[in-house]
């Protein structure tokens, strides 16, 4: 038992910090701090910068472009990125499809797709959720019907994040309606978003921002080379593979640490009617303390998971991280808006000029209200808190 980072780890952190702080463009950093959804341009640019450094996907195996860092080092890297207000890279290629491809993809698929994911040349979206398949992926209704040596896909996907940025989709579809979805009835297909038959309808979320979409798939033709892994019926296995990993990432500790740091600075600038900085008010101090303590525990829970090495995440612990991490994100976003007083009522729309904000509002007001509203989704997306509790009851207690 050694409950400290090694000096090698600390040296590593310094190295990463030195690079990252210089590498993030100032205007990109400002946009990240404002808490709005990252623009496609920022995603592409930051991805390219990291790619050129060889750091776009540290968590990947080295042979596919990863860095060979330990899980703890990857965590330190993510923390430094967050501390430097770098945006998160697009999730769907680097976090979801990439690992699927290098684990299950055919050599041709790996050859064709992986490098472009790594470089940010190709953006992907995840076609899993549907109108009647939210928490319950087994209820997917999108069909892929055999047609010659290929398939024809029809259906409707919902809550598709970044579908409007994406060049391609990896799409879960029913390939066999005679067997259970869990028993070989589902398959993941890879195809272009930019083709006739794919229609993307923006869905604004409560923040009035555009990050998710409805995607209509109308007679999309795919060939045998577009079947993930080359074998029909593996969709359920592939989908499950993604889940644990997603939940650990969803703890979002580095981002929340940075957000809380910013929040405290704002609490020093905002004042009550007596001119006292909000940070000096006992109730505000106690709320901040509570969040700090909750976040500290979450961070050490993540460290405990990571210290065990790659990919061996315990399902109930990962679910717990997701529950707590999402609540902390909500708490921070809400407290920030509370600190802003009535200025926190203004919705933004224009992130560069924020000309629809109160005239006296400082820079940090820009995305605050919007982010608070969007963060309601944190306990919903990637498995609701209720779903996570069910996983814990089942996996930890067999209930």
């Amino acid at each position, binding site marked *: 038992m050694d409950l400290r980072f090694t000096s090698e780890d600390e040296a590593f952190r310094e190295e990463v910090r030195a690079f990252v702080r210089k590498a993030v463009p100032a205007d990109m950093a400002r946009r990240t701090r404002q808490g709005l959804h990252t623009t496609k341009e920022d995603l592409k640019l930051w991805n390219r910068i990291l790619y050129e450094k060889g750091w776009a996907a540290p968590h990947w195996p080295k042979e596919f472009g990863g860095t060979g860092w330990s899980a703890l080092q990857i965590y330190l890297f993510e923390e430094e990125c967050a501390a430097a207000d770098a945006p998160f890279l697009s999730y769907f290629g680097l976090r979801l499809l990439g690992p699927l491809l290098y684990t299950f993809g055919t050599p041709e698929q790996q050859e064709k797709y992986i490098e472009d994911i790594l470089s940010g040349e190709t953006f992907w979206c995840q076609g899993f959720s549907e109108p009647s398949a939210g928490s319950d992926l087994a209820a997917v209704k999108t069909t892929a019907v055999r047609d010659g040596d290929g398939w024809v896909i029809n259906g409707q996907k919902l809550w598709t994040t970044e579908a409007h940025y994406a060049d391609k989709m990896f799409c879960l579809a029913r390939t066999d309606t005679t067997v259970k979805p869990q028993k070989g009835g589902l398959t993941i297909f890879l195809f272009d978003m930019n083709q006739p038959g794919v229609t993307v309808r923006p869905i604004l979320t409560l923040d009035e921002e555009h990050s998710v979409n409805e995607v209509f798939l109308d007679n999309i033709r795919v060939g045998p080379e577009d079947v993930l892994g080359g074998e029909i019926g593996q969709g359920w296995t592939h989908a499950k593979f993604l889940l644990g990993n997603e939940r650990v990432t969803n703890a979002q500790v580095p981002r929340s640490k940075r957000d809380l740091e910013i929040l405290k600075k704002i609490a020093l600038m905002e004042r009550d009617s007596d001119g006292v900085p909000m940070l000096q008010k006992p109730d505000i101090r106690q709320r901040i303390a509570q969040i700090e303590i909750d976040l500290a525990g979450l961070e050490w829970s993540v460290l405990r998971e990571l210290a065990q090495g790659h990919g061996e995440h315990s399902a109930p612990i990962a679910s717990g991280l997701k529950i707590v991490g999402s609540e902390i994100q909500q708490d921070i976003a809400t407290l920030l808006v509370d600190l802003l007083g009535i200025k926190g009522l203004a919705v933004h729309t224009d992130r560069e000029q924020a000309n629809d904000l109160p005239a006296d509002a400082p820079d940090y007001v820009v995305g605050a209200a919007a982010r608070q509203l969007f963060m*309601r989704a944190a306990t919903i997306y990637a498995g609701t808190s209720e779903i996570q509790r069910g996983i814990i009851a089942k996996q930890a207690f067999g209930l």
Partner: protein
Amino acid sequence: MDFSLTDEQKLLRETVSRYVASGYDFQAMRGKPVDDPLNVSQWRTFAELGWLALTVPEQDGGLGASLEDVALFFEEIGRGLVCAPLLSTLLSAIIVSKAAESPTRTEALEALMGGEKKIALALEEAGSRHDPAVLTTRAAQNGSAAITLNGRKIVVQDGAGADGFLVSAQMPSKDGKAGVGILLVPANIEGVEIRRYRLIDGRDAADIGFENVKLASESLIVPPAEGLSVLQDTLNRASILLAAEALGAMEAAISITADYLRTRQQFRRPLSDFQVLTHRLSDMFVKAEHARSMVYRGLSAMNGPQEGRDKAVSATMIAIMQAGDFVCGNAVQLHGGVGMADENKIGHFYKRLRTIGKSYGDFNWHMDRYTRQLTA
């Protein structure tokens, strides 16, 4: 003690619920500029229904409704998620009616009742944080000559489309003591600069600058000796009415969520088969009942002695905000992804509650006010 409604109260509520049921479309109305034909015609209807006359005294041709009546009215407004500058208008009428008889007073009340003009409350400033006594806007007057106004107000709710503002300003009273006067300032006169924007609940607001704005002495609606107590009373009324609106919104959100649980299928069962979801709904019910009781209690206190009102109103608002966060937050949660779509109504109850929680006093402000008055 009698919690049952009079026939008049029932009727008043019915005019609202009937209006909402007969095709009121929240999604069509939110974010619409005040001069949009839909808004213009809606406002005309409100005037015809008598809603805009509710708080105008009977001797001025209004309905002189009691605070209870208006609260019941706002409960239905909340239930229907009606997006309109009703609160500003009804509060403005209360303040204006306190002015001494004058053509300005008469015109303003007529215009408010008739729906021809809208007046918004310009009280908050960058440093005020809901305290009406903390302000830097100043009005100067030489004897009974014209008044000069300088200052800046922020987040004036319903301010983007208002024809005039009731502006609080520091000014000495006749005996030379410091005071806070309330002035009626037209939106379109020289020196008034309006910066318009939207709030999260789909309504509008404005920051308003006043630079050497010249006003007739009649514009002084409430003299500096009385301004602060009028403002404090107005803020308490505003809070209670918002609380009532919040209550209606919560109950609507619960009812919509119950329907959703009954119909939405996941894992081949209706959501209502999942005990954690139905028990959450039960907790939402309990919180809303608590909120309802606290609205009644607040109303009761507003009819009681002056010294108990501030504390009771803050208690009501604290309860409303906590219940509202829980009820409307969970209404979104239980809707899952669907609840996060702005095109679905349920999230707007949440946004309205969030807005109410920062209007005329936020949680910290009410909790501070309450705990200051806590006694053993």
